[in-house]
């Protein structure tokens, strides 16, 4: 069994602005992963809610939380409740849609972020599993549909050279520094994408090291 909670601070923590760890802090986390996947703040975001998120997002502050995450705020940032206003001032268009029916990724706390900025597009399907922890179970990037197991961290390398030697080098590096449960390879005409489900949270400084070594890497 892969453990969904990997640190005592997943349980005692996060320090956050209320009112709900799954619907507020977890929603901030989903927004933040959207920001990381997109590589910054997108100009336009449509958020699709399913299940409990669709039913209770207004009462739980889920809207401002997702907006805060997209802006890159942390859960304990006092600006979290004002995030939609701050986003509007920065010219970012964020919309929220309550979807009916079951979550496409099979969890009652689901938000799917459709992000775009001109030509650039990405989609992230996240669910908030409790206590502020989240999973990312579906991603669309460069037109490729990626299906990670869900649990963070997730490492994604976009390889435009399509040669697989990057994959070998990254796999060897990760085996040494951040062992993974599973590796998936996706191929299209434009690029290859390598996705890794990492077992434990990254050791300090590891993401910096990864970014230096692989310019097109995404660490969720």
């Amino acid at each position, binding site marked *: 069994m892969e453990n969904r909670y*990997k640190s005592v601070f997943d349980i005692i923590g996060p320090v956050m602005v209320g*009112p709900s760890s799954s619907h507020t802090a977890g929603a901030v986390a989903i927004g933040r992963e959207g920001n990381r996947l997109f590589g910054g703040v997108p100009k336009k975001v449509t958020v699709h809610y399913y299940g409990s998120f669709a039913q209770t997002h207004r009462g739980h502050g889920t809207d401002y939380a997702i907006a805060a995450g997209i802006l890159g705020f942390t859960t304990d940032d006092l600006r979290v409740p004002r995030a939609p206003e701050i986003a509007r001032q920065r010219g970012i268009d964020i919309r929220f849609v309550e979807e009916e029916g079951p979550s496409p990724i099979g969890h009652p706390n689901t938000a799917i972020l459709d992000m775009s900025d001109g030509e650039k597009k990405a989609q992230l399907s996240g669910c*908030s599993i409790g206590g502020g922890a989240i999973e990312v179970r579906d991603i669309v990037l460069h037109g490729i549909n990626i299906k990670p197991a869900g649990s963070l961290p997730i490492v994604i390398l976009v390889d435009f050279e399509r040669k697989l030697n990057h994959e070998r080098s990254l796999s060897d590096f990760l085996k040494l520094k951040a062992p993974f449960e599973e590796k998936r390879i996706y191929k299209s005409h434009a690029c290859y994408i390598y996705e890794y489900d990492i077992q434990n949270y990254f050791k300090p400084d590891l993401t910096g090291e990864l970014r230096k070594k692989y310019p097109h890497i995404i660490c969720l």
Partner: protein
Amino acid sequence: MYNHIKEIVADSEKTGKPISELIIEQECQMSGLPREKVWNKMKYNLETMRDAVKKGHSGNGVFSSTGLTGGEAVRIKKYIEKGHTLSGDTIMTAVQNAVATNEVNAAMGVICATPTAGSSGTLPGVLFLLEKRLNLTEEQMIRFLFTAGGLGMVIANNAEIAGATGGCQAEVGSASAMGAAAAVEAAGGTAEQSAQALSIAMSNLLGLVCDPIAGLVEVPCVKRNAIGAGNALIAADMALAGCTSVIPADECIDAMKKVGHQMPASLRETGIGGLAGTPTGQAIKAKIFGEDA
């Protein structure tokens, strides 16, 4: 990493180390962070909790923007000062701390989720009561949180801690079980007694539904944390007295998971069933969000 409560108890008995120490060692090993950093992170969480408790019972208290909750921690404080509590000043002080924290949470103040925001009052309820009652040092209070968190990880990985997947038993029920076990350690009990306290506390809240009015983390969440804190202290006392749970801790956790999955969605944080579904609950929802909501 510990996957079961029985492994933690066995390790504690073998090494003579308290649960808190085993969890600190596990965290250092898994995160790669030095002990001092791990310790200070928990200290920051403790300080956040202390600030929230203080804020909730200072002055006139805090109030949520809907007006549904607030000010009751102060009311309880004044009641205790009169000196005629029925369940005793100890229980009612824990209740005051728990309510204060959740009122701050409902008012969108800063809290520490333990394990969730909806259940963020239960542990501080117990912890800041024990600080007075047992004269706990800061070190002991930080250890309390490591013990609670380490056992909470086992609960979270084997069952649920979200109301949407497991009902309130997964939130306040888990928090109460964690608090009971950590209280035992703070009082000088054994790891085995901690496991017994966890089992007793969890068993007593099995089946608790998550039915927030208008989907807000206010009613009944705030008062359920009062019960979570009281239940934790009673379970800890029973375990320290030598009472045992017939069902072992790990099986109680499995039972909690199954009960949660058997609950209909209307009772899992959808704001549809239970208290949320009552005429008054529905009327409050309509008043806050409009008739079409």
